[in-house]
């Protein structure tokens, strides 16, 4: 998939505030609030790598499609496809506080 085709699809995601496309070598594409955000790219890469190491007993592949990092005002949604990590920052419209 060409970079333009990848980013065009990400632009159309509802409530998106910005996105990152990351490969093993670094950031391939970025836009919006995540433009050139190497720091977030590094953190998300580490988080998704860690999440991929969790396996349910008896399954060889990770048992999730998407990782969501939920904050008060926005959510980072992360997935991996074709050796690329996609991070989309989306608005969080669910404003109720999380009480722990």
């Amino acid at each position: 998939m060409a970079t333009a085709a990848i980013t065009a699809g990400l632009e159309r995601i509802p409530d998106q505030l910005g996105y990152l496309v990351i490969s093993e070598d670094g950031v391939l594409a970025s836009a919006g609030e995540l433009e050139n955000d190497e720091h977030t790219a590094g953190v998300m890469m580490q988080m998704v790598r860690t999440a991929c190491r969790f396996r349910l007993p008896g399954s060889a592949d990770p048992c999730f499609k998407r990782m969501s990092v939920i904050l008060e005002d926005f959510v980072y949604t992360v997935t991996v496809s074709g050796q690329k990590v996609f991070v989309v920052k989306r608005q969080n419209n669910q404003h109720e506080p999380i009480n722990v």
Partner: protein
Amino acid sequence: MGCCYSSESDSTGTNGEITEPLINHKNPASKPPNGTDWVTPNVPSARTDEQALLTSILTKTAQNIIDVAAAESVMMEQHEYMDKARQYSTKLVVLSNSLPPKKALGLPSLTSQPHQVLASDLVPYSDVQQVSKIAAYAYSAISQIKVDAKEELVVQFAIP
């Protein structure tokens, strides 16, 4: 686990499988691993019930106790250490060569349609709250785990 009072599960691994030693020695040590002399549980019929009982108590005690003093007295010459080290490393090289090649550390593919996955609805608030609550309970439970020391791990036997 190699602690006292765990000899019953010494030979079994966590999966209940018997763990074999890396190298089987042709001449096993004359003493058992817990440092005590073997006590034969077979009691000749001539002995009284009291003696049989005593023997069974002795056997049980010997199985449950690691004699630290006896273990320390087993000295090994330096060349013996070197020989063992060499033997183990040779064995490890052989075993590691027979292992399947390590899987590439690349990222696994989670989906073939990243756009759909990223554009789908966000996790409902109630689900997030439930997960947070469960995590908080688990954290609280883990923080309350305590080791309760009941008795001394190493004790001196007063032999008259």
